[in-house]
């Protein structure tokens, strides 16, 4: 790899990291505004016009607050927990193709940090690693509520990972590749995977809610039962890291859903745009389209949170093991049969 390529990749990494953080920051603001809208309130409106500086004020507050480490907590792991949570949240975005190849000054740039040939599995691995931050933090707090939250998080993540994996298998049977770049390229124009895998997408989005611990699956931090769940003992920026990790997770999983099922950076009429806007501007429009889809998903996450009440724990397990897994297996079988018949008679 040339030095210039290396520098371009480095710049891309920094840009994506920055965008993830900014999106996560403004997701907190958006969440409060959307909650306010759905509950017919005004929401934050004091810091700056429309309260647009609210996330900065929140961040400053988080940093200024007193840092408390409980005496009985195991000190090192207490710090490892939130660090791991935010680290696993950030590394997921490395394999997402943010746009088609861009041409700048005669040089072709891939708008993707790395295209490993097992990209989908990489995402899956990062998701499965995400639970460690919560588990370690919850255990290290040496608090019964935290421990219960951590244990709930672990069992919930494992349960929903299975159906998530099964729903992806059905998708992979159609795409025939594990590379996210190729999956995005296959969905050129309006040929999105969601038209072929509606049930798989439904299962995937339910599991994505569960894996990001978003309501109605936020049992690990269920305040009516567990005070604050796994982050009961946390204060200051360590708590901020946990909350931030949740929003980054939401951003990354929205990006994954948009890429896997909703065409990524593809949109109808992209060929016409590519012909008229040139090889530098057209990919940027693709990036904008991808971000529009991501924001739509994030809005959906928030919409659900402020509309649907939390599950009971046995309902959660019932949904995961007895509804989603059989549905996902049926989806695999159905996809296999239809794909074989289609290839046999029409292709």
């Amino acid at each position, binding site marked *: 790899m040339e030095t210039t390529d290396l520098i371009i990749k480095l710049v891309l990494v920094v840009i994506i990291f920055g965008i993830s953080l900014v999106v996560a920051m403004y997701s907190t603001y958006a969440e409060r505004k959307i909650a306010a809208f759905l509950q017919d309130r005004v929401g934050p409106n004091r810091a700056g016009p429309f309260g647009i500086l609210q996330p900065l004020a929140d961040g400053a507050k988080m940093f200024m607050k007193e840092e408390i480490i409980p005496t009985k907590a195991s000190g090192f792991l207490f710090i490892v927990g939130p660090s791991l949570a935010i680290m696993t949240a950030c590394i997921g975005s490395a394999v997402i193709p943010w746009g088609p190849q861009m041409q700048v000054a005669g040089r072709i740039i891939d708008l993707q940090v790395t295209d490993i040939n097992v990209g989908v599995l990489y995402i899956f691995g990062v998701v499965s690693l995400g*639970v460690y931050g919560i*588990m370690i933090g919850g*255990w290290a707090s040496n608090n019964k509520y935290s421990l219960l939250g951590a244990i709930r998080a672990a069992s919930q993540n494992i349960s929903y990972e299975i159906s998530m994996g099964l729903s992806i298998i059905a998708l992979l049977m159609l795409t025939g590749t594990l590379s996210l770049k190729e999956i995005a390229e296959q969905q050129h124009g309006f040929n999105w995977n969601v038209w072929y895998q509606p049930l798989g997408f439904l299962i995937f989005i339910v599991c994505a809610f569960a894996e990001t611990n978003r309501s109605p699956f936020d049992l690990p931090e269920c305040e009516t039962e567990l005070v604050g769940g796994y982050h009961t003992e946390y204060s200051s920026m360590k708590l901020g890291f946990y909350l931030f990790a949740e929003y980054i997770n939401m951003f990354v999983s929205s990006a994954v859903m948009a890429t896997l099922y909703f065409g990524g950076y593809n949109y109808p009429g992209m060929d016409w745009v590519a012909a008229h806007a040139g090889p530098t501007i057209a990919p940027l429009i693709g990036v904008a389209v991808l971000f529009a889809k991501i924001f739509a998903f994030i809005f959906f996450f928030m919409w659900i949170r402020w509309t649907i009440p939390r599950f009971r724990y046995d309902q959660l397990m019932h949904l995961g093991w007895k509804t989603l897994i059989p549905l996902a297996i049926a989806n695999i079988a159905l996809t296999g049969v239809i794909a074989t018949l289609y290839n046999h008679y029409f292709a």
Partner: protein
Amino acid sequence: MPVKVFLFTSRMSIFYFIAFLSILFSLLVIFSKNPVHSVLYLIITFFTFTIHYIILNAQFLAIVNFIVYMGAILVLFLFVMMILNLNKDSEPTKSIYVKLAGVIGGGTLLVTLVAAMKGLAKSQPVVLQSVNLGSVKNLGQVLFHEFLLPFEVSSILLLSAMVGAVLLATKDSNPKSTKPTV
């Protein structure tokens, strides 16, 4: 070719470094007092295995090791350790005979392993035929053509283990009282 030699040596030094880490963390698994710390060290040990697989150009194996062992099995280990909440006060004191039996058993295993190692010839460095040897496509081809029968048989083995576990878990005089309580 100096570049290739450089790549080779750097790869070897990475190997030695990662192998050192693997051994270090697996020793820490045994020597740490707290069982939860042991599991955490085991997680790091498995992570170093993942890096070993990547060095060996087996990306699929690496990522599966990552997902299945680090992401699922060890989460369950950690889960059980956290629920049991073992510590020095609650640890049952073992009698001297049990300890003695453990020492003798472990020593015998060590002798057997050393003897088995001695019989092994030093392996020749294998020249990689293709870079994509460990890719999903090649692995799938091999699994579903050459090794189809063992593959399916092992899946039946796993299924029977799963059915057995479910049977053990639901063995209750009153089957209606098996609601999860966590």
